[in-house]
């Protein structure tokens, strides 16, 4: 009976193309039923292992709780968060520090003092100074890039054990002096005589003191991401109500997952001078009425993207332990999942800024030789409710598939009962550099807990880029 329910449910969105709205109630009640649904269907492929390529596994992964910026982590430095994630990973996996060959971290807004934050965090977490570490940046998919960099190092035989992670501290961002002020200060450094110094100082003007904030806007287009998300919602005819409903779903599912203790990747973090933080603090299920009261945040006064249906500025860090399968087994580990095919995509940063998942999903499935039906757990990054819904509409549109994706037919929708069932970035938070690892670990943990073989992780990022990866559950 459950399977009939599921089947009808899966067909639901695609049959109601013209009026694409979510009915949340069935989703919420359905998610219980889904858990009993084991991966009994036959898959297109038994495994994604490839001959002559090393199997790469994620042994385990952790994250410190994701917090609203400006809360408990606000007095720390970014590498402190990364350090806490590393310590948590060491504790969780008991991996001897010396077997780690390399560390990679992703981050977006860089603290200039720790521009190679991976190295500072590793040293601070007690890793040997002999272990190299580097930092990568690819906007919201920075830690995805960190992980796939690790995969590359292992696959090419350079390393056996890599720690990958990501970190973001939005509570403290580098606000700079203005260019004119910096120039004057630098020139002052070089000035040799008092006369030269005075001459320079005499050029000082009050407006030199105006600070320079890190750009919140896309550099190439000058448009903020929220603004672009709002335009995209309009382009795909996504209504405010649909967005609010989706955001509410995210918060409700996250709350449930939190309450049931499903978010096992979270490790507690004793913040110096403060209480131990044990859980994410952004999960706040509200009501549609309350959400409807909010004013648009970007396109005023008639836009549809609001604070309630967008992800919020978040502090947090995450880390995963990646190994070659034979190494993990030799060390006696029981890995959580294989990391399989992955790819990155890129589109127009103006009008298709956040459509990465729609483009990347069909491509990664094709690359792996799987279909949508093979996937048991979808974990998509939720930058904005409008972004998720626009991606859905893009995937559900033959017109879009034919005119923009070079496909004959539409991609099709991921069934909602398999989609972000433990909440997502909208509710759990989105520390830019750290979200990727959370997605992979959530997919792996969901497969381990609910059964199922394949998970699909997808995310969008500034610059019009996107990423997708197939995660295969490690057999029990």
């Amino acid at each position, binding site marked *: 009976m459950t399977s009939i329910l599921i089947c009808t449910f899966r067909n639901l969105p695609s049959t109601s193309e013209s009026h694409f709205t979510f009915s949340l109630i069935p989703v919420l009640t359905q998610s219980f039923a889904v858990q009993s649904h084991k991966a009994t269907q036959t898959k297109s492929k038994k495994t994604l292992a490839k001959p002559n390529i090393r199997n790469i596994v994620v042994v385990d992964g952790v994250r410190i709780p994701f917090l609203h910026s400006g809360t408990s982590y606000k007095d720390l430095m970014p590498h402190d968060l990364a350090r806490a994630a590393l310590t948590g990973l060491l504790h969780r996996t008991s991996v001897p520090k010396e077997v780690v060959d390399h560390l990679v971290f992703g981050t977006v807004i860089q603290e200039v003092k720790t521009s190679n934050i991976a190295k500072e965090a590793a040293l601070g977490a007690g890793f040997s100074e002999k272990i190299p570490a580097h930092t990568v940046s690819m906007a919201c998919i920075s830690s995805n890039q960190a992980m796939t960099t690790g995969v590359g190092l292992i696959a090419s035989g350079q390393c056996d054990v890599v720690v990958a992670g990501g970190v973001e501290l939005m509570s403290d961002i580098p606000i700079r002096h203005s260019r004119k002020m910096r120039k004057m200060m630098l020139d002052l450094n070089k000035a040799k005589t008092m006369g030269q110094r005075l001459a320079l100082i005499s050029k000082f003007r009050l407006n030199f003191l105006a600070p320079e904030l890190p750009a919140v806007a896309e550099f190439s287009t*000058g448009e903020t991401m929220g603004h672009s998300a709002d335009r*995209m919602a309009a*382009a*795909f005819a996504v209504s405010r109500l649909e967005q609010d409903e989706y955001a509410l779903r995210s918060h409700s599912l996250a709350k449930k997952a939190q309450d049931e203790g499903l978010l096992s990747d979270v490790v507690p973090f004793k913040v110096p001078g403060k209480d131990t933080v044990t859980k994410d603090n952004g999960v706040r299920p509200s009501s549609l009425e309350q959400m409807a009261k909010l004013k648009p945040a970007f396109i005023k006064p008639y836009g549809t993207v609001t604070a309630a249906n967008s992800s919020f500025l978040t502090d947090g860090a995450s880390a995963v332990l990646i190994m070659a399968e034979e190494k993990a087994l030799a060390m006696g580990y029981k890995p959580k999942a294989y990391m399989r095919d992955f790819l990155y995509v890129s589109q127009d940063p103006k009008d298709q800024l956040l459509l990465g998942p729609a483009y990347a999903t069909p491509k990664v499935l094709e690359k792996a030789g799987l279909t949508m039906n093979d996937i048991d757990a979808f974990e998509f990054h939720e930058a904005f409710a409008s972004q998720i819904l626009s991606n859905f509409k893009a995937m559900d549109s033959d017109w*879009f598939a034919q005119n*923009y994706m070079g496909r004959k037919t539409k991609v099709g929708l991921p069934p909602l009962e398999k989609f972000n069932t433990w909440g997502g970035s909208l509710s759990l938070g989105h520390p830019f550099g750290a979200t990727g690892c959370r997605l992979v670990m959530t997919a792996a943990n969901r497969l381990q807990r609910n059964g199922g073989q394949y998970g699909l992780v997808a995310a969008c990022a500034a610059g019009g880029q996107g990423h997708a990866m197939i995660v295969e559950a490690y057999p029990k």
Partner: protein
Amino acid sequence: MVASRAIGSLRRFAASRTFRPPGYICRNFTRSSALLARTYINYGVKGDVAVVRINSPNSKVNTLNKELHAELVEVMNEIWASDQIRSAVLISSKPGCFIAGADINMLSSCKTSQEVTQISQEAQSMFEKVEKSPKPIVAAISGSCLGGGLELAISCHYRIATKDKKTVLGSPEVLLGILPGAGGTQRLPKMVGIPGAFDMMLTGRNIRADKAKKMGLVDQLVEPLGPGIKPPEERTIEYLEEVAVTFAKELADKKISPKRDKGLVEKLTSYAMTIPFIRQQVYKKVEEKVQKQTKGLYPAPLKIIEVVKTGIEQGNDAGYLSESQKFGELAMTKESKALMGLYHSQVQCKRNKFGAPQKDVKHLAILGAGLMGAGIAQVSVDKGLKTILKDATLPALGRGQQQVFNGLNDKVKKKSLTSFERDSIFSNLTGQLDYQGFEKADMVIEAVFEDLNIKHKVLKEVEAVIPDHCVFASNTSALPISKIAAVSKRPEKVIGMHYFSPVDKMQLLEIITTEKTSKDTTASAVTVGLQQGKVIIVVKDGPGFYTTRCLAPMMSEVIKILQEGVGPKKLDSLTTGFGFPVGAATLMDEVGVDVANHVSEDLGKAFGERFGSGSGELLKQMVSKGFLGRKSGKGFYIYEEGVKSKNLNSDMDSILASLKVPPKPDVSSDEDIQYRLVTRFVNEAVMCLQEGILATPAEGDIGAVFGLGFPPCLGGPFRFVDLYGAQKVVDRLRRYEAAYGKQFTPCQLLIDHANSPNKKFYQ
């Protein structure tokens, strides 16, 4: 302060120089029977909001004509009568055009000023009904909203515009020698303030949506959308409509007010404008400025000021009456006929009569990174052409690259480009010293030094490296293309593309075809020129082609006049007083005395006496002393970096004194001097048509106005003959011929026209 702002806003007023595509669109009358269902306008009702969609049939743009007007009246009456409808949205179904203006043919087909006045009064009364509508009306603007379109929009209660590059608002009537005749002169000052309104109506410039929002011309902006469930343009219009409908509802529900919050400066300005003394000062200053710039040659700007003044000082009724009467009067003036004619011709010269070339030009190579070469490169990369800029030396190349960058960067400063767009456009340019990549070039434009031997050398070099299909275009102002093509292995691929300096500002491109140039080569050149945003005339090869050939006899007369003792300053003021944008002596300095010398020698040899009169000695001596004009810092005037006022070059006195000839008093009045210059120009232009150098008079007019600055108020040499009368032109020529000789002998075609008064260049 207010006055100075008004003046500042007028700075760009230059009817003579910047003739942009105005908002009046020429379209043939489509006589739709009144019995048919509505063809121009339809409307649907969304909830309690009527959505009125404007869609002129069989046209890319919507224009206000009698049919559309009648249907609008009908539809609006239905809306006002309906109990179900509480508000309305006016929108166009055409992406890229709200309403581009009134139908220009509707106006030019009127025989009397009364007819035109009546058209104006009908529109006035309709728009007044819209303004006074008890049900709020929202104009949803996407694309051009010009002239009558703007007047309709500002009579609505609320305006929402798409914030894209195609959406522009403006009152370009002045560029056609008329005024906004549907209430615009009365509503605009109330909406954007008196100085702002004068600026819009007197310059006729297009205002982008974001600027319009700042000025208070529109109330809300809608961002253009990217791809979604439908093509972007289609969905953007839909979205605009959705947003407009919500605002219309809120207006009907009185949730929002159509009144706009004004900024502090705006409040102060409008307060100042309530003081009669300040208003008078503003009128006075604006009038002075207009007088100074138009030299009284253009009646429209002065009438606009008068009508605005009447409305403000004597009330609406007087204002509307004055507007409709002056509108009628202006439409009958020679100036307006000349400007409208010019507009028609411009539209023709923006079309590709030669069809698409067999192979699209995607890779362009330009030889010579000088002023012209770099200018051509700039207008090419701008439109996405991959362009190679080649020069022989690194410093010359660097200078050229810098020129292209500066040109683009100026647009960033004016905010019409972002710095990022600038960089990405600039990446289309490759600067190099060798012929690498020429094997992929679809067209090569050479802009090397004007010397036949050098041109031959590069032609041979280039032909060794380019593919077979590649077009070789020569940017020369006087060297006959057939002579350049003489050394070519494939003369059918050789063509002339004569650009005007500065290339990014001057709209004209003169394309020169030889006997051997193939149709496809011409099609290629025209296509590239149109891509570069040029207005194109295609002429036959011959010494000086068309433009240079017309200019040369006039320049020869300039020298003669200078020899007769008229000073350069006086000469300049006489020529600008006739309507030329640049004085004759200044023009010589700008073109370069050496170039002028070169050209006059060449053409003198080719055409003999007709190009004589002024002594060639003057230019020779100037060249030998290094007085080459602006580029050398000295010509007739002295040019210094950062100094705006020009001083006469006193070293010229001795040269002029040595060549002095006695003036002939009976043909040396100010008017005679002006006509001696203009009739020689006109006579030569007509001769070009007679000889088949020119294909049509329209191209002749466009070439003269856009390339040489022939007074736009006269409409070009051919329009001038039509309006002024061929007989009178011939009479003048005969009188000067008697005094000076053969250079003034009227050509046969001109005489033919004089002999049969029904003969006109434009029927």
